[in-house]
């Protein structure tokens, strides 16, 4: 039986040599958590099942920096590496795979060019394509939307792009189903309502997406402590939980979180 995965996420500012891991996507009250490859190596030794790098640099010409970060990391880290943020073309994809990445994560470019999912999937295999969906609750119900019942009332979910700065009108659940058909191997599902709240994962959203597709789903957004991860694993069949800041600033180590989950009956790799 497959173990549930714990995935630390490194939001990387690649505007400086070697890059730096930052907390939060908004460039306000920014906190630096460390050098990407060093933090990745620490998490690997601490038991991370996989590591996600997200390039949040607003400027261009940073692809070389991401390539060097991944090259360095893949010499030290022997679990799967996923890379996302600003990947637009098959050339971008080739560069990060050649540097040692196992998966790429695409959001904006997949919504703008859904064929990109199929193209990458055909070239590198379905397992290499993670479609990231940033979903926001909408309580104004419309026809042709996938409606979800929540304790706060019925709602649908809208996809956002550019790190939550722009909304697309696209139904997130319908998009997850379409992405699966197009060749996505996994969905990285972030709740924009929960992200940054430290209030726990969006259980209803996660549960609905997991039920409606067959490929694995990674829950993201809102995690502040091990109990939140336990909750999303107990209440949904989600394959993995992603978290960033709870690991970055030493609040919890990955080993602590995994022990906590294992003691409570979750199938975890220790």
């Amino acid at each position, binding site marked *: 039986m497959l173990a549930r995965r714990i995935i630390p996420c490194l939001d990387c500012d690649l505007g400086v040599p070697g890059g730096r891991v930052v907390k939060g996507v908004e460039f306000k009250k920014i906190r630096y958590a460390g050098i990407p490859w060093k933090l990745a190596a620490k998490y690997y030794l601490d038991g991370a099942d996989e590591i996600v790098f997200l390039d949040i640099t607003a400027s261009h010409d940073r692809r070389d920096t991401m390539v060097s970060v991944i090259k360095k990391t893949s010499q030290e880290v*022997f679990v799967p590496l996923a890379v996302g943020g600003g990947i637009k073309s098959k050339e971008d994809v080739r560069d990060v795979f050649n540097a*040692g990445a196992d998966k790429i994560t695409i959001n904006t470019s997949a919504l703008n060019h859904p064929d990109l999912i199929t193209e990458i999937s055909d070239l590198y295999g379905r397992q290499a394509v993670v479609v990231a969906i940033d979903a926001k609750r909408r309580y104004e119900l419309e026809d042709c939307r996938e409606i979800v019942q929540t304790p706060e009332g019925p709602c649908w979910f809208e996809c956002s792009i550019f790190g939550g700065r722009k909304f697309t009108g696209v139904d997130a659940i319908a998009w997850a189903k379409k992405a699966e058909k197009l060749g996505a191997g*996994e969905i990285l599902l972030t709740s924009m309502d929960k992200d940054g709240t430290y209030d726990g994962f969006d259980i209803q959203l996660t549960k609905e997406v997991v039920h409606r597709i067959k490929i*694995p789903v990674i829950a993201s957004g809102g995690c502040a402590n091990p109990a939140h991860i336990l909750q999303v694993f107990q209440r949904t069949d989600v*394959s*993995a939980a992603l978290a960033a800041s709870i690991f970055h600033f030493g609040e919890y180590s990955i080993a602590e979180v995994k022990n906590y989950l294992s003691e409570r009956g979750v199938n975890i790799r220790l």
Partner: protein
Amino acid sequence: MIAVIDYGMGNLFSIYNALVRVNASPEIVHEPDRIIGASGIVIPGVGAFGKCMEKLSRFEVALFDEFRNGTPILGICIGQQVLFQRSQESPGAKGLGWIAGEVVKLPEGVMIPQMGWNSLCIKRHAEILEGLADGDMFYFVHSYHCVPEDKSIIVATAEHGVEVAAAISKDNLSATQFHPEKSGKKGLKLLDNFVRSTRC
């Protein structure tokens, strides 16, 4: 020198880096004559069965000679599958056929591809499993699995709707359905075991 066969299907950095980490001297080889005299050979796993065999075919004669000479060979993922005669993934494509049997689709009702960490059930002692135990977890990514005619070559299985042949061993031939180079310390241990076998 451990030859890692590059048959032009993408990322070999991970296996290269993992072999360096266990103090081996890997070389990514692009030409069949470079594997002659290697102390060990790794057939890595990327892509679909038919495509792999197409790319691997020019290595076939040299590989078979090394196999017959007793050079330790490790197949990983698709590199395990191509050792068999055929695969449902690519009907009509011929595998290396060193192991009698075929590669079949994972059963309905389980997540396909199997992607993630699964635990091993060790069936019998094998050199590559030295120091590893029942329940140790490894990273799998696959949609098809190997069914050898001779079940005794299966040294470890993993449960995913069916007993998947997770590791096989036959004379100088070893293979894993999982990716040891992506399986953390346990995976490095397995690679270390393989590298040791090339030094005997």
